[in-house]
């Protein structure tokens, strides 16, 4: 078995199993905890909790202007690499073909050259995020090993993907194998670190949204 076959086969299967099991374990482990039931009467005209939660999931996508002034870089750069990552994963034709082989359905992709540009921009944005984390006194203080591991395991699939798409640095099969292996590493780490925010943000925003909107408070 060559490296590419190993990456696409046992490695990806193992990584996916860890990803699915770990993600479920973490989500269930948190959501199965008993809630503190809020029995206070809601503010007159307050939406039901589920609606307050959903509203907040969307409301929190744009920071308040007053926080945007100081958090402009974090916000804009965050949007750049999140959208960039989403486009690279879900709008690149070879990825769509791969996902079709898994799920049986597909959707139109974007031109490869465009996705390559998006990938390069995403990589640059991730480098900027790291530079900011390493130089901001606040971020330096609050960062954990998880922040750097999560950064690396997000960055590697992007750069190996760019290398594979441009056939730079090694044989295509080798580059593709490294790309797939980097994704395996990403999937294995995902449930254990902050990458889980991809799922947790819904619950986190929603819980606060339900609490605040019940009180008639704005978020």
């Amino acid at each position, binding site marked *: 078995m060559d490296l590419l076959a190993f990456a696409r086969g046992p490695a990806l299967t193992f990584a996916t199993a860890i990803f699915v099991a770990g993600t479920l*374990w*973490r989500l*269930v*482990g*948190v*959501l199965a*905890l*008993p*809630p*503190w039931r*809020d*029995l*206070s*009467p809601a*503010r007159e005209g*307050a939406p039901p909790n589920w609606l307050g939660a959903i509203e*907040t999931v969307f409301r*929190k996508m744009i*920071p*308040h202007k*007053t*926080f945007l*002034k*100081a*958090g402009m870089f*974090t*916000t804009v750069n*965050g949007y750049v690499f999140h959208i960039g990552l989403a486009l690279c994963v879900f709008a690149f034709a070879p990825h769509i073909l791969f996902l079709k082989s898994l799920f049986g359905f597909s959707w139109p992709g974007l031109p490869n050259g465009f996705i390559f540009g998006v990938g390069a921009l995403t990589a640059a944005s991730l480098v900027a995020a790291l530079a900011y984390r390493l130089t*901001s*006194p*606040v*971020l*330096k*203080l*609050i*960062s*954990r090993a998880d*922040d750097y591991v999560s950064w690396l395991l997000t960055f590697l699939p992007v750069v190996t993907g760019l290398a594979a798409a441009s056939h730079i640095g090694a044989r295509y099969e080798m580059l593709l194998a490294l790309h797939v292996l980097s994704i395996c590493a990403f999937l294995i780490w995902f449930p*254990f670190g*902050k990458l*889980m*925010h991809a799922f*947790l*943000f819904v*619950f*986190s*925003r*929603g*819980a*606060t*949204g339900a*609490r*605040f909107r019940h*009180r*008639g*408070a*704005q*978020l």
Partner: protein
Amino acid sequence: MTAKTTVSGVAFDAQGDRNDTDRRDAAMQGFVRDFARTAAIHMESCVRCGMCATACQYYVTTGDPKYTPINKLRPFEQAYHRHVGPFAPLYRLLGIKSNVSIDMLQEWEALLYDACSLCGRCTLACPMGIDISELIKEARHGMYKAGLVPDRLELMDRTTKAWGSPATPADDFSDIIREAGEENGVPVNVDLPKADYVVTTAPAELTEHTKALTDVAKILNKIGASWTYSSAGFEASNIGYINGDVELQEKMTRKMIDNAIAVGAHTLILPECGHAYGAARWEASRWYGREIPLRIIHMTEFLGEVVQSGKIKLKKIGESTSFHDPCQLVRRGGVNDAPRAVLKALGLELKELEDHGALGWCCGGGGGVVSNTRADPLRFKAFELKRKQVEDANAQHFVTACGQCRITLTLGAKHFKWDQKVESLLELVADNLQD
């Protein structure tokens, strides 16, 4: 009680004579008991983006990263991951998450009590929606259990346990009310066996702002309400809620509400106190396990009701004012419109502060900070933000609806020799009732 300093030079107080291991274990038990579902979700969700720093008055005015709100939760977070989180057994097995040390707890005491007013502005800044302020309040539960609380706050706790209030013995309460009535020429009701409204107080009314005791009486008399103060349940500020003493929080909540139920009241009126609103309006049912069988409203909501329903008519002052939004009332309590409606009824042109409503800056003294004299220098730094915005608004009056905010702002003005009177919404209404 002993005042000490950590290795890094941070002052901390410690109560009781316990060894470090017992103290730490007590903190862990206090931390761990609070991880219900929402707290756990929030402990799992931080992406360490630092946005919360931009919302915190203590960080913004000092530039010191240690005041970043999420950093204040570090021991709480460590306890969560080691003892509660979904991977806690794995982390313990691999030794990835170490136990919280006593040094860490001592170091964090000042961050949890001196450098957080529980104002919740950080909650609004967090892109993940983490309710950091609520988590800090819960982290204080463990600190209280460990006996690592600022002495001044612990003193108020002990006083409340002994007297039923941090301000005055319950035995003296009825005399204070009657004296205030005589001094201000307002008929007052105290310890009536039955009434529709029970009025409660906070320490501010029983010390600096005694006129407020008769201001509310004046309005209730005006609308012909059946009402009373009660020696058996008058204290609403609930120092247990602020300190992290959950047993005292429950006791004070039950005492106040059980009394109101016994009196047969349909409405319990909370004083002009922000934390009283958080403790009673939103958390009281936690101790009862069911809805409370009476309405609990803040003084500002009461004023809004009697003004908007036309039960009282007000003289028009006809000048301009700015308004300080008490955090627990507005940002965390949702009472944004009522104070503004009352100001309008008073004929006051509202000149909003640059940051107002849910986004307003805290007075700097909430969460017990104003009572914790050790925190004075930091509190005065935070005050600079509010002062600038009030000056920029350039209004003739400056009004608020929380006695503790009023004290904090008045102390700040005095410290900086700033000639700015801080007025009470209740007092303005009582002083401008039409005959």
